[in-house]
């Protein structure tokens, strides 16, 4: 039977409870919440309470209600206090809506009283006597610095490989990207680095940036003001939940039409049909990887019909042929629309053949996007995400989509915008990364091929979130085991003996791994030193959401145990590097590690973000509350920070001459190596996606009973006829296998899935889809995670934990 909380009463926050601004850190949307904390021995009453409402009465729909998941007991200034974290009705992002993730922020806090999240790290740890042992910060940081300093001075900084977050929200944020960025890009110039979800240090959206169009250019309100919403390779009801519910749905109810470009019928498509009416939703269910052909046909049709915005093109886009030729760093040429059309022109019928959709539907989509409405220009807002970011031919495909927005003048205007939807919030502030180069190093391959000697890992778990993961894991483990064996052999010796042993092992092909994380991650099993980090609200953290809304999410509790903010851990590494290098007699190099005398995260913020944005301080952000300010911040007037609602509203774009460029996005079929062969060889397309319930915080939810009860295993959605072919019933465990590796999942019958097309949840701790993804990337080392083919076999009947769960359709039905 389903998990029951067996809670029938909760404490009431008193009137004088402390109130803190919170921006939910579980996704890009960044919903506003209020955290209430109050003394353990105090409580409010039904009539006198922090919410200012009469709690002796049943609250109506949409009213204020503290669900059990919104409550916990945590440490604040060393004392146990009550905590309630509730969605904020006054925040324009979510207007009081919570989600299945954000509304569990409180219960996903570590608590020694209620026993939640006991997987969180309390102390730094070091590999000693065959296991990871807790130790002091001084001890752990000293070993990190001793080994790192020896390796980069005896070899070079290229021997240090760094995996680090580049985002905001949980982990990351302006404080922490600055702390790590200053360490690796200023004190050092590390070029062999990668980001948490891809095997290189690169942008996921190079082409739109090269075209002068930053990928977060609108405001969420544009969905409410538009004529057409076009959603490409995204499932926003699940992964940008309150953006969908609080902005897209109102837009649909205002009469907006909706176009989905997506091979799979998602719950977003279903919900849009309910909100907008079936006739107003067009689902272009294209063949895998064919988005670019569709976009090119749409552009061709829009140009042919004369539906382009001529003035916008003349005034705001590049006019004279080629502005940027195709080269090693640019997988397509950029320039004028005429230049682009030489490569992009594609007939409706040709695209229909490639994409597997009706030519008439493509024509209809073109009309919905661009045909003038009541004599006026039609407004269209375009949103895209991993379907094309982690898809076929990333650079050109995103370029082809942005072409449509530029041709129709739908950037920088009300009801327009062409934006990625995003995953985490943003929060990037680092010294220049120019030394990394473009294309950047394919770091996974470097490690697999024996490159690198020291690996610093910051809040990344490549065991779950990289491609070609089977091979990566095997080799990463083997190399780190060499160091573990050397450390075991050096037990009982001095620190110098230990460092010598480690350096000896890495010189023979071993890898010394330092893992900075909030939990014992899977890649952390290979670590020799683990540094315990904390996350937002255990520290103050600034980030911006998918409409560039910058907020300060306030600290309301202590970091768990002896864990620390990442920026202060980075500072600790720097200070130890300086000390060790000095002792090694390298005074000049040591001096590069000065400037980290931060005692709080605010010091890191002032050292980094504030230097570039002097108007912005913690105090001012606190004043701006949960509505914050939309970046870029352009001033401070009447006690308020002044931001910008939309980028490029003056028609000037982010290029040297302020003119946007079109992308010569010529269709070339499968771009990444090995994809066509794999498709031909295996029976099933193993698409991957995310689920509302745990989206990108599965690593926390592996310790959450409510979530584990629903999905004890990662699911794979399969058509029932495909299930019959392999003899699998609902909940049976299957193995997904191909030449890259194998992984496991639980079958979820999905009648709307097309035959031969499956979807496995990505990033699960209990079955990594990355195991079966081949190493193919684009020219700029962007992975094509989405295109994987494999065979599937049954390995077990539904295990006991699975037997009681629901396998009914996820689609809402209006009754």
């Amino acid at each position: 039977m389903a998990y029951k909380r067996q809670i029938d009463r909760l404490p009431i926050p008193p009137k004088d409870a402390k109130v803190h601004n919170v921006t939910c850190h579980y996704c890009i949307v960044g919903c506003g919440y209020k955290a209430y904390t109050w003394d353990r021995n105090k409580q409010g009453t039904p009539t006198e309470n922090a919410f200012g409402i009469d709690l002796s009465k049943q609250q109506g729909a949409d009213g204020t209600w503290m669900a059990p998941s919104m409550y916990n007991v945590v440490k604040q200034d060393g004392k146990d206090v009550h905590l309630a974290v509730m969605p904020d009705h006054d925040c324009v992002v979510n207007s009081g809506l919570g989600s299945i993730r954000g509304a569990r922020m409180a219960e996903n806090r570590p608590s020694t009283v209620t026993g939640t999240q006991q997987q969180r790290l309390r102390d730094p740890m070091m590999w000693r006597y065959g296991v990871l042992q807790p130790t002091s910060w001084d001890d752990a940081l000293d070993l990190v610095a001793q080994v790192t300093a020896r390796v980069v001075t005896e070899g070079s900084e290229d021997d240090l490989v760094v995996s680090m977050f580049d985002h905001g929200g949980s982990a990351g944020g302006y404080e922490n990207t600055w702390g790590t960025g200053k360490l690796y890009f200023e004190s050092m110039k590390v070029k062999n680095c990668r980001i948490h979800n891809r095997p290189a240090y690169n942008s996921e959206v190079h082409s739109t940036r090269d075209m002068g169009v930053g990928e977060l250019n609108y405001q969420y309100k544009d969905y409410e003001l538009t004529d057409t919403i076009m959603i490409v390779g995204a499932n926003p009801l699940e992964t940008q939940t309150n953006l969908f519910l609080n902005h897209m749905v109102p837009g649909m109810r205002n009469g907006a039409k909706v176009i989905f470009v997506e091979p799979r019928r998602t719950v977003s498509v279903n919900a849009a049909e309910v909100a907008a009416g079936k006739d107003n939703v067009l689902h272009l269910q294209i063949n895998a990887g064919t988005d670019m052909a569709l976009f090119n046909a749409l552009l061709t049709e829009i140009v042919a019909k004369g539906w382009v915005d001529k003035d916008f093109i003349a005034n705001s886009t590049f006019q004279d042929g080629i502005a940027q030729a195709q080269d090693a760093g640019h997988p397509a040429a950029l320039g004028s629309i005429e230049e682009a059309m030489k490569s992009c022109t594609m007939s409706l019928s040709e695209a229909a053949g490639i994409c597997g959709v009706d030519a008439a539907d493509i024509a209809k989509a073109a009309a919905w996007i661009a045909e003038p409405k009541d004599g006026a220009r039609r407004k269209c807002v375009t949103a895209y995400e991993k379907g094309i970011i982690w898809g076929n031919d990333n650079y050109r495909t995103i370029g082809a989509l942005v072409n449509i927005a530029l041709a129709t003048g739908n950037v920088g205007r009300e009801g327009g915008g062409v934006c990625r939807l995003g995953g985490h919030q943003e929060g990037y502030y680092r010294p220049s990364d120019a030394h990394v180069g473009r294309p950047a190093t394919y770091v996974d391959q470097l490690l697999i091929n024996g490159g690198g000697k020291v690996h610093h890992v910051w809040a990344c778990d490549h065991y779950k979130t990289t491609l070609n993961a089977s091979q990566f894991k095997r080799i990463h483990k083997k190399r780190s085991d060499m160091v573990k064996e050397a450390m075991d052999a050096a037990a009982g010796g001095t620190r110098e003996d230990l460092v010598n042993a480690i350096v000896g092992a890495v010189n023979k092909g071993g890898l010394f791994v330092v893992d900075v994380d909030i939990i014992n991650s899977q890649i952390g099993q290979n670590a020799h030193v683990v540094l315990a980090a904390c996350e937002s609200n255990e520290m103050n953290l600034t980030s911006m959401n998918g409409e560039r809304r910058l907020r300060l999410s306030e600290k309301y509790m202590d970091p768990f145990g002896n864990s620390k903010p990442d920026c202060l851990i980075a500072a600790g590494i720097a200070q130890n590097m300086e000390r060790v290098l000095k002792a090694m007699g390298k005074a000049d190099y040591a001096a590069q590690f000065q400037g980290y005398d931060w005692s709080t995260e605010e010091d890191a913020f002032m050292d980094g973000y504030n230097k570039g944005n002097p108007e912005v301080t913690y105090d001012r952000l606190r004043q701006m509350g949960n509505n914050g300010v939309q970046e870029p911040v352009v001033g401070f007037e009447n006690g308020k920070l002044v931001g910008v609602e939309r980028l490029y509203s003056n028609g000037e774009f982010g290029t040297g001459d302020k003119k946007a460029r079109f992308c010569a996005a010529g269709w070339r079929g499968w771009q990444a190596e090995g994809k066509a062969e794999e498709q031909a060889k295996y029976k099933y397309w193993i698409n991957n996606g995310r689920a509302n319930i745990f989206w990108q915080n599965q690593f926390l939810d592996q310790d959450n009973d409510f979530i584990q009860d629903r999905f004890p295993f990662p699911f794979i959605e399969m058509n029932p006829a495909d299930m019959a072919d392999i003899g699998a019933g609902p909940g049976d465990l299957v193995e997904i296998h191909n030449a890259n590796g194998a992984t496991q999942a639980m079958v979820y019958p999905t009648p709307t899935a097309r035959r031969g097309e499956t979807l496995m949840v990505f990033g699960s701790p209990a079955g990594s889809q990355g195991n079966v993804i081949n190493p193919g990337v684009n020219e700029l080392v962007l992975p094509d995670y989405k295109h994987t083919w494999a065979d599937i076999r049954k390995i077990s009947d539904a295990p006991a934990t699975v037997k009681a769960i629901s396998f009914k359709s996820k689609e809402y039905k209006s009754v």
Partner: protein
Amino acid sequence: MSRCSNLVDVGRRHFLRGGSVAVAGLATAVLPVGGAKAAPANAQINYPSNRLANVSDLTVNEPMDIEYPDADSPGALIKLGQAIEGGAGPDGDIVAFSTLCPHKGWQLAYDSKDSTFNCPGHFSRFDVEAGGQQVWGHATQNLPQYTLRVDDNGDIYAEGASDLIFGRPSNVL
């Protein structure tokens, strides 16, 4: 099921009736509010034992509107037609749930075709055959399920709830 055919309006209207009317209809066990010499509170709340219906009143797969623990808390009593874990009654197939969505409190509608409650608020779904498990949705708990007792006459009583009901800090107000 009349309540389910026009959900939003009915849901809202239901609450406009307000708490004060409902409190008068409360059966037993209202916790004392204030009161200088109130007895020490129990470690857990006392639920009323309310008669909901008789087994003979129920038709398979047709939910009956109920109100529990008080008149302001709408729910449904359903005979599923086949025995189910946690099911009550002679056939072990009777279950009862709160029908306020534990996301934002909209009134749920029953889809008899697949025995699910569906929320017109934000598309959440709950499976009546799996203990009220949220099939998909935004709520951070499963649907509160009521503890049922069936006496020798076939009278069905609700006597407790598995989870906190939307819109209240305590299941018994």
